[in-house]
């Protein structure tokens, strides 16, 4: 075998190897949630529903913080807003938009109640969530 094809084969092998390594190197992890994804499980589990996953990123593309956190009165705290379905039906909290006019209506249960059952209320990847806690104090 002449030298040049051999060299090409070597380089090809190397590149293929590197690509394979890069693919394998995608780290495992249970929470690949997006930064700022909020899990709300104040009442869901007890009511036999999946917890709600609220994607901040999706909403901030469409509305500035002002809309929900000033106009609609959402507190800056995961689980700190006493949201229930009755209030949503009445147009409070999520119901201000999720009314089939601005966004999908409340009949689409499975679009908001999408979380893994049993997850605790929290903001994913938040700094305080990442503070090291003794294993016994961890919620999950």
């Amino acid at each position, binding site marked *: 075998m002449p*030298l040049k094809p*051999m060299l090409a*084969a*070597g380089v090809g*092998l*190397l590149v293929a*190897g*590197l690509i394979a*390594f*890069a693919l*394998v*190197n*995608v*780290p*495992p*992890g*249970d*929470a*690949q*949630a*997006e*930064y*700022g*994804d909020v899990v709300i499980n104040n009442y869901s589990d007890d009511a036999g529903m*999946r917890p709600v*996953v609220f*994607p*901040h*990123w*999706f909403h901030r*593309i*469409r*509305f*500035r*913080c*002002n*809309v929900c*956190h*000033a*106009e*609609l009165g959402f507190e*800056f705290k995961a689980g700190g807003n006493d949201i229930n379905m009755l209030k949503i039906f009445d147009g409070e909290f999520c119901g201000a*938009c999720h009314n089939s006019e601005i966004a999908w209506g409340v009949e*689409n249960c*499975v*679009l908001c*109640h*999408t*979380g*893994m059952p049993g*997850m605790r209320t929290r*903001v*994913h*990847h*938040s*700094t*305080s969530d*990442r*503070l*090291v806690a003794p294993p016994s104090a961890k919620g999950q």
Partner: protein
Amino acid sequence: MKKSDRLTLFCVVALLVGTAALAMAGMAVTGLAGTKKPGGQAPVVSIAQADTVNSPKKKPSAANTFNRLMKKPASAPHASPVDDGIHDPENSGTHLLQWPTEAFQNLPGTNDGNRVDWVTALKEGAIAPRYELEDPDAEAFTMDLVIVREVKGSMPDVVYPHQEHTEWLDCTNCHDEIFVPAKGENQISMAAILLGQKCGVCHGKVAFPVTDCRRCHSKPKSVEQLRALAKRSAWPAKDSGPKKQ
């Protein structure tokens, strides 16, 4: 042996050695690439994975891993809702949700948080979020006032721009509950921020995380300030012998 045969033999040996070297380099490179990954926790991955790669060897005790308190790093950014670990793939609605990758494809990037530079995205018009629920044309009520907070030590001072914040938020979101609108009236510490107070009410939850130090600590101390600081913290203390130049 003919000359061409010798050359072929040499090439084969070189290829084999090269492959082995490449495989090892591959491991090393992925380790390196890991450290460059956004999120800042990647080194743990490469070490954890090195363990699994060398599985025939005796594994070190699980009690003495590289950093037993460090959480496993979050995976590659922007997993789909189906496999991000928090949405239930068994729920039919999960499969209808938008992927972050799709939403973020034309937005300016950063290395942390959502890997989106939201302030620039808004400024450049890459996104056009409403400021008011009812009125699509409502303009943000902004204020152009920059606050510089002097901080301890050699850490650059914090520059706080009201402009960027009021593009998104209402005055009442911060004043007076989180920050008293008066100079010197607000005690802010990184400890408080890490616990989700003060700036940490948003930064480290939805706004860019606190690991991006220099986005806030952006005004370097002057040379004079740094000299004074060095003088004050000189070691050994003044009266304990001659000082080295």
